């Protein structure tokens, strides 16, 4: 790739390095606070520390999928139709899958010492697993090719279909889970009470900095998706321009 193209990519991002830096500083501080400063829990000892990643991951997974659904709807409404909504839906969908996977992995790691098992067929866990696969399908659908407009329309409809399925899955699974197992894994001892001030602060810090991280990653990913879109075309144009010894005629990409 030529110098011109990479230079352009940098100028698009130049505006908000502070956002990324703040997010990374916050996440680093969360690690220090969560792993070193915050006290142990009386019941769960050190295992509870996974909470500082688990809670933000859960919140961001739901936030990300909601953003995907809203962006999908905005793309489908003719008045607001713009490819930027498709980029936002895609970027947020990817992050949602990442945070869902993080939530499941972290929850599983926590489940082993506290419940004594990696997995429990409990309503929230099962719903989350289905959620992961719903959106893995959504992401797979985004990659099947076609024109940007085709992809945007298809994914927007798929994004909405998946989103309205979430409450149905949750409802049916909780119904199913309460039918056949009552508190075999859960009891009051498992309830975590965050009363300690440092714990509360760490949790808030974790949620805030992971949310910043989400916003920053989402914006970067949108830019990447937009740059990716015209890549082949622009490379061809650049090659033609180089051959004919003319200055580059491609337009900068804006999101």
């Amino acid at each position: 790739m030529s110098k011109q193209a990479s230079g352009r990519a940098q100028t698009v991002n130049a505006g908000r390095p502070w956002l990324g830096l703040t997010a990374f500083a916050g996440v680093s501080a969360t690690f220090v606070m969560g792993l070193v400063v915050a006290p142990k829990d009386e019941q769960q000892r050190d295992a509870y520390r996974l909470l500082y990643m688990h809670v933000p991951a859960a919140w961001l997974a739901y936030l990300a999928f909601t953003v995907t659904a809203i962006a999908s709807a905005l793309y489908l409404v003719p008045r607001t139709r713009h490819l930027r909504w498709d980029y936002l839906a895609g970027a947020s969908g990817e992050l949602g899958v990442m945070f869902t996977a993080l939530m499941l992995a972290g929850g599983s790691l926590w489940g082993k010492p506290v419940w004594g098992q990696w997995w429990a067929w409990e309503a929230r866990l099962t719903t989350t697993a289905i959620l992961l696969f719903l959106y893995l399908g959504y992401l797979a659908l985004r990659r099947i090719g076609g024109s940007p407009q085709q992809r945007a329309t298809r994914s927007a409809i798929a994004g909405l279909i998946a989103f309205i399925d979430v409450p149905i899955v949750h409802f049916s699974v909780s119904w199913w889970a309460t039918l056949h197992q009552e508190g075999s894994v859960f009891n009051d001892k498992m309830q975590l009470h965050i009363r300690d001030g440092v714990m509360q602060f760490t949790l808030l810090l974790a949620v805030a900095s992971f949310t910043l991280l989400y916003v920053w990653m989402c914006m970067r990913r949108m830019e990447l998706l937009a740059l990716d879109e015209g890549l082949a075309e622009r490379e061809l144009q650049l090659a033609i321009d180089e051959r004919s010894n003319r200055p580059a005629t491609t337009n900068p990409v804006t999101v």
Partner: protein
Amino acid sequence: MCAKDLRIELRARVVMAQVLPFGVLVLILFAFTLDPNSAILPRIAPGLFWITVLLSSILAVGRSIAVEAEHGARDALRLSGMDGGAIFLGKVAAVVVQLLALELVLIVATFMLYSIDVRGLEVLVIAAISATIGIASTGTVYGVLASGAKVRETLVPLLVLPICAPVLLGATKAFESALAGRSGEAWPWVQLLGAFGALYLTVGFIAYGTLMEEA
């Protein structure tokens, strides 16, 4: 539209000649992996039956999309000026008819192979019809979403299986309750199935026109 798809099926017999044997085979294979002499088979038969139906449905839906992909039939449909929603309902109806025929044979096979006494027949029928409408609607919408993709055969199952998780759950529970002679417990699940079917039938009806044009 429905009649056309069914006529194609009657002539080609792909669903009946390939998907149906596949379904019965799956039922037999389940018995291999689970001890057939113990009481476990009758107990979990509803779940095994609905997993078999869901897997077979994926194949049937794939067939329903393939019918349109051949010979540029989709473009002809778009040229016909028919309403997208009407095309969707027609395709869903054809899939529902084929799936119900499939389920009829499979349920008889399940009852015979796993030695089950039939009870609560009206619940079984209504649950099966509602579940089938849900599977056919989501399958048809996702089918057209993925149509044209080279990876369609692998993509459709990934899309349809998670979205149909509530259907699998609801249909299994409804069948379990009905076969155990507790039809009363089955109705909430049947209502869930009905709501799911109605919801995705509506979504597909609205979305299909846009999809036929642009995707």
